[in-house]
């Protein structure tokens, strides 16, 4: 076997991880709005709303336009926009006397657009209240302006998401841990079936090695998830359904190793742990793929929504995310391979020593 045949996939894994680190860290975020204040207002007033932007160019692009948007139909344009710096801007709104809704209050988002940055949105930025309602009058006031002629943002950039900000990049480091773990456990499932069917005499050892690497990825997934959660969801552990289920899944595979060290007889140990491994993978499917989709979760793509998409993983992010998943999976198989070969050498050395004695 040529050197390339043995090493090409390990090199590929290393290069893909390197690519995900470089591209994932160096590409900038799209301009966005970090915060706006005040967040509460009443009708029939003139309001100055100060907007704090991120990666924005309010001063150098003189054509800032700001809208207060109630829904896709109803919005008002700011009567005056005063940029204070590249990232600070004050928009003045003449809030009409009536809202176009029969309720006493409405949530508005703020949309900002200029020729350098393109459009940026801050959802539920302003809570507006009215004492009495007049829907017809409200219609007339809020229908006048329309959001149109939006610029497009330039360059290859990652999306700006409200609470995530730069941590959206963790998608390339935290999520591939879980993908890698699933692939490693899938590999260990294949080998334990092969072993039990008598097709692979080393199947049990391969299962252990793959589970070792998979467990490492699982624990790293939990750890990185906790760090990420602390600064976005405000708590290391918020009892989110996916967090809990992932922790249970990790414990199930931890139990595999406890079971393995608990049985003395080698033949029995290999058979029992291989059988356990099949059941472990079967329990993994409802834990990670079914239960988190049945209830509400803080994770994107859960709570009835089968896959993540849109602004959580746009096409630019896919260009970094999928190579990262493949790269980390290959690295995981590399780790498992090293572990397996070390164990094989250990067995070989032991038999050689026993033969000599």
């Amino acid at each position, binding site marked *: 076997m040529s050197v390339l045949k043995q090493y090409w996939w390990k090199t590929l894994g290393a290069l893909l991880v390197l690519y995900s680190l470089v591209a994932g860290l160096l590409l900038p975020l799209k301009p966005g709005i970090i915060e706006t204040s005040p967040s509460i207002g009443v009708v029939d007033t003139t309001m100055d709303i100060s907007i704090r932007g991120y990666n924005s160019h309010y001063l150098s692009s003189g054509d800032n336009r700001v809208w207060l948007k109630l829904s896709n139909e109803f919005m008002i344009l700011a009567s005056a926009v005063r940029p204070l710096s590249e990232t600070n801007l004050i928009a003045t709104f003449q809030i009409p006397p009536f809202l176009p809704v029969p309720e006493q209050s409405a949530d508005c988002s703020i949309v900002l657009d200029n020729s350098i940055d393109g459009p940026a949105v801050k959802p539920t930025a302003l809570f507006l209240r009215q004492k009495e309602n007049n829907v017809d009058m409200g219609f007339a006031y809020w229908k006048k302006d329309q959001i149109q002629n939006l610029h497009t943002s330039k360059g290859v950039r990652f999306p700006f998401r409200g609470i995530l900000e*730069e941590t959206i*990049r963790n998608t390339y480091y935290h999520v591939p841990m879980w993908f890698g773990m699933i692939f490693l456990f899938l590999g260990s499932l294949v080998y334990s079936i092969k072993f039990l069917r008598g097709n692979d005499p080393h199947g049990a050892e391969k299962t252990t090695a793959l589970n070792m690497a998979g467990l490492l990825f699982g624990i790293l997934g939990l750890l990185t998830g906790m*760090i990420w959660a602390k600064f976005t969801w405000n708590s290391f552990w918020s009892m989110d359904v996916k967090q809990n289920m992932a922790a249970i899944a990790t414990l199930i595979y931890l139990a595999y190793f406890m079971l393995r060290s608990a049985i003395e007889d080698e033949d029995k140990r290999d058979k029992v742990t291989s059988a356990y491994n099949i059941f472990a993978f079967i329990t993994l499917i409802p834990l990670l793929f079914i239960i988190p989709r049945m209830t509400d979760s803080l994770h994107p793509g859960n709570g009835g929504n089968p896959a993540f998409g849109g602004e959580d993983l746009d096409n630019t992010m896919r260009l970094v995310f999928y190579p990262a998943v493949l790269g980390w999976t290959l690295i995981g198989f590399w780790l498992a391979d090293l572990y397996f070969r070390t164990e094989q050498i250990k067995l070989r050395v032991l038999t050689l020593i026993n033969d000599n004695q």
Partner: protein
Amino acid sequence: MSKRILIVAFILVLSQLAMASGTGEDFFRATGKIYVVFAVIISIFAGLIFFLFRLDRRISRIEKQINPS
């Protein structure tokens, strides 16, 4: 065993340093929370190094068996 205590102590000291560096949690929330990404990458790196250490120890044990002197 003492190595494990050392590792735990090291992690504790690191986290204390991060929290007590006068800036506390604000440090991680500064510049668009980019330091959270930094912490995540560091912990993945630490996990890989941990795996390497364990593998190293296994290989050392085999070497000792081949060469008991």
